[in-house]
């Protein structure tokens, strides 16, 4: 029976994969219901997403913002906070990057650095607000981050009127120095795909987050607060400071994600550019088990769904991909607890 317990433990460890498999299976039912062949559709989807250099580049491009927002959610989660505000933080980050890149009188690469920093700082500030409200008044961060999402959208729309080009909903282009190079300039195989240097920034940040959480004094304190706040307090950690800092760092990660679209792709800010990447970031963190390496894999998966979904669009409706994403989230939430319960019961 010990062997059986070991098997169950394996299943629990593999629960993200099982969740994905279950979601694909459930999605297959939908595909069959509209008279298509599920296996064929899935094969097409993943072949397009990974099979060609261009497809891979597109997948990576779509995975990039999810990597940032997934890291943002995961970091906050480790400190015991549920940051539902990544969408808003991403949004203000993108706006700040566009303004800094378009208006700061800085030469060449300095402008790029400034624009990226602006994105991070704006996101950090937007994340710090609910962090401070939580630390100071104990106000629940879920409610406050949701509210701040709405405020971010409205505030940026309003402020945007002053800077948008006439008859458009986007800003003017950022300076050349702030335009992040596309990866196809270094890797010809990716030709034509908009994946750009912010992907590399995201990967570096994943490493930074991992080191921060698991190898530094600060990360230790954040995790202690997340896992047992009253023991952390006993250990001399100021819970309020830790929560505020975690939210600011989380917001910074989300804000930096704005660089992908604004600095690396369109070179301007456009209303609604974030397109739900913040919300999908929650799913990415969940599926990636709040670990940076898991987040990398999960963002890649969701990026593939997003791009592959566009391609299979001719044969199944666009909404299918959204249903599929929602199913993955649903299964990601329930699979692990269900497996754990079963493991306790049967082994």
């Amino acid at each position, binding site marked *: 029976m010990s062997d059986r317990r070991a098997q169950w433990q394996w299943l629990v460890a593999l629960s993200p994969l099982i969740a994905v498999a279950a979601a694909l299976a459930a999605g297959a039912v939908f595909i069959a219901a509209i008279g298509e062949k599920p296996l064929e559709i899935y094969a097409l989807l993943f072949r397009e997403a990974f099979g060609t250099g261009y497809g891979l580049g597109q997948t990576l491009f779509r995975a990039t913002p999810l990597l940032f927002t997934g890291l943002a959610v995961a970091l906050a989660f480790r400190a015991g906070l549920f940051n539902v505000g990544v969408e808003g933080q991403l949004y203000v980050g993108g706006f700040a990057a566009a303004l800094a890149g378009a208006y700061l009188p800085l030469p060449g690469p300095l402008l790029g650095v400034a624009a990226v920093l602006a994105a991070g700082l704006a996101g950090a500030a937007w994340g710090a607000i609910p962090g401070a409200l939580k630390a100071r008044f104990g106000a629940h961060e879920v409610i406050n981050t949701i509210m701040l999402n709405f405020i971010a959208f409205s505030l940026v729309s309003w402020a945007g009127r002053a800077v948008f080009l006439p008859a458009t909903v986007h800003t003017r282009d950022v300076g050349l120095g702030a335009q992040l190079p596309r990866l196809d300039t270094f890797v010809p195989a990716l030709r034509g795909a908009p994946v750009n240097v912010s992907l590399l920034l995201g990967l570096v940040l994943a490493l930074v987050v991992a080191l921060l959480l698991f190898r530094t*004094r600060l990360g230790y304190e954040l995790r*202690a607060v997340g896992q047992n706040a009253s023991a952390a307090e*006993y250990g001399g950690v100021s819970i309020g400071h830790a929560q505020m800092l975690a939210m600011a760092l989380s917001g910074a990660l989300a804000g930096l994600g704005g660089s992908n679209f604004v600095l690396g792709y369109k070179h301007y800010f456009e209303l609604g550019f974030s397109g739900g990447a913040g919300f999908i970031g929650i799913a990415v963190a969940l599926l990636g088990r709040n670990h940076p390496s898991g987040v990398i894999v999960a963002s890649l998966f969701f990026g593939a769904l997003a791009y592959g979904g566009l391609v299979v669009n001719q044969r199944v409706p666009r909404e299918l991909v959204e249903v599929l994403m929602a199913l993955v989230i649903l299964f990601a939430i329930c699979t692990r607890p269900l497996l754990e319960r079963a493991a306790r019961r049967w082994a």
Partner: protein
Amino acid sequence: MSTPHVTLRGITRRFGALVANDRVTLELPPGEIHALVGENGAGKSTLMKVLFGLLQPDEGEIVVDGRNVRFADPQAAMRHGLGMVHQHFMLVDTLTVAENVTLGRETQARFGLLAPGDAEREVAALAERHRLPVDPKARISQLSVGAQQRVEILKALYRGARVLILDEPTAVLTPQEVDELFAVLRALVAEGVSIVLITHKLAEVKALASRVTVLRGGKVAGSAMVADTSIERMAELMVGHVPAPLTERSHRAPGAPLLEVQGLEVRDARHLPAVRDVSFAVRSGEIVGIAGVEGNGQHELIECLAGLCPPARGAVRIAGVAVSGHSAREHRAAGLAHIPSDRLHRGLVPDMSLAENLVLGLQRRPDIGTGPWLGGHTLEDASRARLQEYDVRPPDPRAFAGRLSGGNQQKLIAARELTQGAKAILAAHPTRGVDLGAIDFIHRRLLAERDAGRAVLLVSSELSEILALSDRILVLYEGRIVHETTPAATDERTLGLHMTGRASHTDAPLPPRNGTPHASGGLA
């Protein structure tokens, strides 16, 4: 429902390579108290979790009234009349007593609505019948540990438990509460209920149980009728030898005061004064014991001295540094170590490794880690020797603290707080839930710290512990220090009188509030 006859036969349960229970057999006839004893990590809690359906056995069977059963979960065990009060309580803090007791079994009024009044009346009646006094309307967070335990017992009885498993129920109780609990248990047994009692106190086994089973390293080391055995024999079976009594302690004059408290007032969660105008000093090379019935301000005093709640009035100095009103971090930086009374709530992060838990509170110290870095192999390597020395089992730096047995968690905290070179040590119930050998070890370590010139403030509900370790004893009653004495000048009975405010003031005049001459002056 009549009490079933329960037998555990050849139970084996493994955790990875570790065999927590090794072919254990245990007999529970109706109307008997069966004591289960053994060292920390011997497998007592594991065995009872198997019986209660919380863990599945790898081998062996559970037989109820002659029939083989399998408990997939606690609900199944409850259906067979089993109930369990865990080592660490499982109550919902924010709910009332009545809500906790009836949780999952709410009596419904019409239209599926809850009828809180009914539940409260029902619980009150049950409490009355079993003489387990609690206020059904009180919230769990407001209750003393003893009262929370009564709620746990009521919860089991409400679900119709006829076989009651109590995992170290007396570890957290005051001597008076222990007497009350035993009276309740005897009454239950008289009604035919059978009880499994896990304890580290062999005197309790003698006083209450009719049968005893000793576990050692997961195996049954022996089982006997209590009448046919002795405390010495049981201790020998548990640890393989009888621990030697505490060595003669050295006498040395205490040095400078390292923990000074002046005119301290601390409010409790409801903003009522819990500690009133308390002044004392603990000097280098001195252990000062605080005796008192639980709930007379000890908890608030310790939390305040640790920097976990600001005082309403008064001053605290650690090694000469004024720290009152400052953060816990500053208290630690001034040289304070603290064994908290609630190990799971305060003392540990269950989901962190042993190595990580060994630096809780020290995570900012320059001599631990380098620069901003902390963690990884260096932390693990640094912790191995201490885990060995304090006999934390398993001594695996990577194991999660939450997986340790209760006593081993306590040893882990002692290993952290008694080895950090602090100047002053707050030790609240330092040996709660640890076995005889570990009690002895922690006592020796506390005395060694004292001899090394630390100031130790000891809070314990065990008067024997206070008497054995302290150089001076302060009695706390209703938040005030009402008596000061030395172990040589008093005994348990006299202390008991002072602790309950019954000592007549004419033949035992109150000492001055300032514990020592050193305490006065200089504290603003």
